[in-house]
């Protein structure tokens, strides 16, 4: 429901947070495995329905359309570009935490 660049900015931060939790033994699931499809599902079953609800209740007035349009546009752009974007997320994570590049999750007491 926001500008594409804003969505990407915070999506990457969320990805980094969960990936770091995984890499440091504080999460069992590797977020890289389902991030691309997960975002599409999040749009289809959460964000877009929410945007439609905002439209239904009308509380944002004419802006409701704007939120729904952004959600749909972002969803389509993610479908096109998301897979490679996740790879970019991963690469930037490894640049930030190079020690995690070649190791998978370690138990918390080992990290």
């Amino acid at each position, binding site marked *: *429901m*926001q*500008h594409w*660049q*804003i969505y990407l*900015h*915070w999506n990457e931060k969320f990805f980094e*947070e969960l990936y*770091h*939790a995984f890499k440091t033994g*504080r*999460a069992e699931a590797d977020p890289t495995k389902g991030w691309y499809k997960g975002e599409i599902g999040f749009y289809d079953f*959460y*964000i877009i329905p*929410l945007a439609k*609800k*905002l439209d*239904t*209740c*009308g*509380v*944002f*007035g004419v*802006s409701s359309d*704007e939120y729904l349009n952004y959600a749909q546009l972002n969803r389509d752009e993610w479908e096109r570009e998301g897979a490679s974007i996740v790879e970019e997320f991963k690469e930037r994570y490894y640049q930030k935490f190079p020690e995690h590049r070649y190791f998978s999750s370690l138990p918390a007491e080992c990290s």
Partner: protein
Amino acid sequence: MLTRITADGPVSGFVDDDDNETLSSNKGSGREVDLMDLAGHSYGITSDPLTQFAVIFSALIHDAEHPGVPNTQLVKEETPEAKKYQKSVAEQNSIHKAWDLLMTDEFQSLRQCIYTTEDEMRRFRQLVINVVLATDICDKDLGAERKARWAVAFADESPVNSTPAIDMDRKATIVIERKYRIVVFIEEVVQECIISPISYSSFSIYRLDSSFGCLPYHATLANLFALERKVL
């Protein structure tokens, strides 16, 4: 203020007490909202500044001291916060930390800008609690409650014994709660507006009528109300 309550220490670009004008409005952003027009669509939650600020405030503090892992992990690790709150752990912790900070001498002037009476403070606090808890989208019980409230509020027919005023409050309540994702969105946009020179639409948020009452908070919020008694 948020530089004091983020787990990773100071974050450049966050607002401080002196910057509350930035929070209360988004002047010059390109599209001003006609509040009078919105009033007709917001179920009695038209343009109360207290509610507007409560939503912005909630957006900014809703992840204060977030530990970077989900609530389920905190419960699994049996952290002190998980033992204390049990459900909506990170959200309740954020509320507590932010509220404690707001209550300090340092933010006396900010408090005086937000509310001037005990009733206003109580209403502000209720709004902040509700909005921040609504950002917990993983708690199935809370999600089911929200879904049920939406269904009742926007049902084709009003419940038995309801009145137009009650219908209005019911819609106002769930519209505020349903904006949990919008709250996150607002936080992101507010931060982006501060951090980067990108221009965004102004926010249009609402007022709760004076008849708006206390919401049925989750039982685990008893400790928050205990804090409220201490504050009062």
